[in-house]
């Protein structure tokens, strides 16, 4: 059985509960649902920020995420997969990204969600700009995110 991932790139917020329910409701073949919500923090490197603005590459963002979703579906026995990534201005405390995985096996659900988050952090064409008292500046990529993504490379 091949499943299709739900992928949404949107400006508006999402409802974690609704997305979890959509994958699992009324089904008796799913043993484990893992959700990851990435939330805008009020600080970056200990400096308070007013907001983040996420820029993305329309078209490529969907295609990139779809490629990674398909890879996750090929690598782990998933019964459901939802990925939502917001763009635009996002205030502290608001949602940025959501990954929900459903599987019969808890480790598959955990690993697929981690794999997808590591890839979204390093390979999905999104860029974060922060607004603070010192003005606007682009957030730099972090090498530990690259390291996290590299652990999924097949040798």
């Amino acid at each position: 059985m091949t499943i299709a991932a739900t992928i949404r790139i949107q400006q508006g917020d999402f409802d974690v509960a609704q997305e979890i329910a959509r994958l699992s409701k009324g089904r008796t073949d799913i043993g484990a649902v893992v959700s990851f919500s990435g939330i805008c923090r009020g600080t970056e490197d200990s400096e308070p920020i007013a907001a983040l603005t996420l820029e993305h590459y329309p078209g490529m963002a969907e295609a990139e995420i779809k490629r990674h979703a398909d890879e996750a579906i090929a690598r782990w026995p998933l019964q459901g997969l939802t990925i939502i990534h917001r763009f635009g201005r996002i205030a502290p405390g608001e949602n940025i990204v959501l990954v929900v995985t459903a599987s019969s096996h808890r480790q598959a659900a955990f690993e697929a969600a981690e794999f997808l988050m590591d890839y979204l952090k390093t390979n999905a064409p999104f860029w974060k700009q922060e607004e603070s008292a010192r003005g606007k500046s682009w957030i730099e990529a972090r090498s530990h995110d690259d390291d996290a993504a590299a652990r999924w490379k097949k040798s």
Partner: protein
Amino acid sequence: MKVKYFAWVRERVGKAEETVEPPADVRTIDDLIAWLSRRGEDYAYAFEKPKVIRAAIDQAHVKSDAVIAGAREIAFFPPMTGG
């Protein structure tokens, strides 16, 4: 071909996209970066550290030695910081 710029590459170049017609000896992404850098100060500033610039051809990530022949859309941007 269409060239797109994102994040601080876009801000430095001063535009989000444009159509360019590089000469035939501009074969790779590296060549295109060098050619664009000679178009003016804004471009030179955007591409001052070519090693940190990432590129995509027709919406797929490529390395800097990728051949651009046949590309409809080429994009330049900093390392991604999504998620």
